[in-house]
């Protein structure tokens, strides 16, 4: 119930709110962030050991597709924000539409990513090629699976929205799923510059 409250509020009148979504999803989110965080750090230190290999291989990545995917994911996150806003005014139909939009963007993300992978695979690049590609493929495909999981979660919520299970007064599940989706976005925000840009 706070996403919107947070958005509307520029004068800070509202009292502190509780977490959007279930406490349990936040534990899960923290765990996931921890896993990714450790992987990011491991990547950075592994790179320090093989600077030339990492720098050279990194330049072969398709930064345009990476940027496109960043935009897609940020936009999908925005759609999810709108979906939560919609259910808060009891507009389940609109809420479901926004979520379907977010899922469509998620699917686009996956298509773009697979296209990118295909580019690399047809260039004969695999996990074994060198350490950079190993990290690149590992991190991005691990993240990709989270996008997929997020889409499944959003799908369940759409199903329940259509079923009339959520209302302005009871839309706890929507926020829970939304929080997870934002996390997937949040992690990409670090992953993208780290693997594609910084050298």
């Amino acid at each position: 119930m706070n996403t919107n409250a947070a958005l509307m509020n520029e004068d800070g009148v509202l009292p502190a709110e509780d977490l959007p979504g279930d406490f349990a999803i936040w534990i899960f989110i923290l765990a996931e962030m921890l896993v990714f965080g450790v992987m990011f750090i491991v990547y950075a230190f592994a790179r320090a050991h093989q600077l030339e290999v990492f720098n050279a291989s990194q330049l072969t990545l398709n930064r345009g597709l990476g940027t496109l995917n960043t935009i897609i994911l940020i936009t999908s996150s925005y759609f999810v924000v709108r979906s939560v806003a919609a259910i808060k005014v009891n507009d389940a139909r609109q809420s479901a539409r926004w979520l379907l939009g977010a899922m469509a963007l998620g699917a686009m993300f996956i298509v773009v990513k697979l296209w990118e992978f295909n580019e690399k695979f047809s260039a004969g690049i695999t996990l074994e090629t060198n350490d950079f590609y190993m990290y690149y493929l590992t991190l991005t495909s691990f993240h990709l699976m989270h996008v997929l999981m997020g889409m499944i979660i959003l799908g369940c919520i759409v199903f329940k929205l259509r079923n009339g299970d959520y209302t302005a007064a009871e839309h706890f599940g929507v926020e829970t799923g939304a929080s997870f989706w934002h996390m997937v976005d949040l992690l990409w925000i670090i992953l993208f510059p780290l693997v594609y840009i910084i050298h």
Partner: protein
Amino acid sequence: MDHTFPTGLYHPLIMNKPINHFSTRIWLVLIMLTMLTFAIGEEVAQGKAVMLSVLAIAFIKGQLIANYFMGLRYVSWLWRGIIMGYFVVVGGMVAIAYLL
């Protein structure tokens, strides 16, 4: 668990368009920051300043998403602190690895 809903939920402001415009503005800022990162990448610029500025952009984007998309802005400071701390620690470690 007993649970009450804040009256703020039905606050008339929520019904107003400007709210959504606010999240739209955040979205626009995020897109612009993304383009900026892309531009830096295309310059193929190297160096510490570039690395640090890209990390700084990521930090800002992360804060925007956490505070305004995830809605942590008005949640207990602890949670915002955790997310911010996460970005500081991960970003900091990455920076250290690059500077070493």
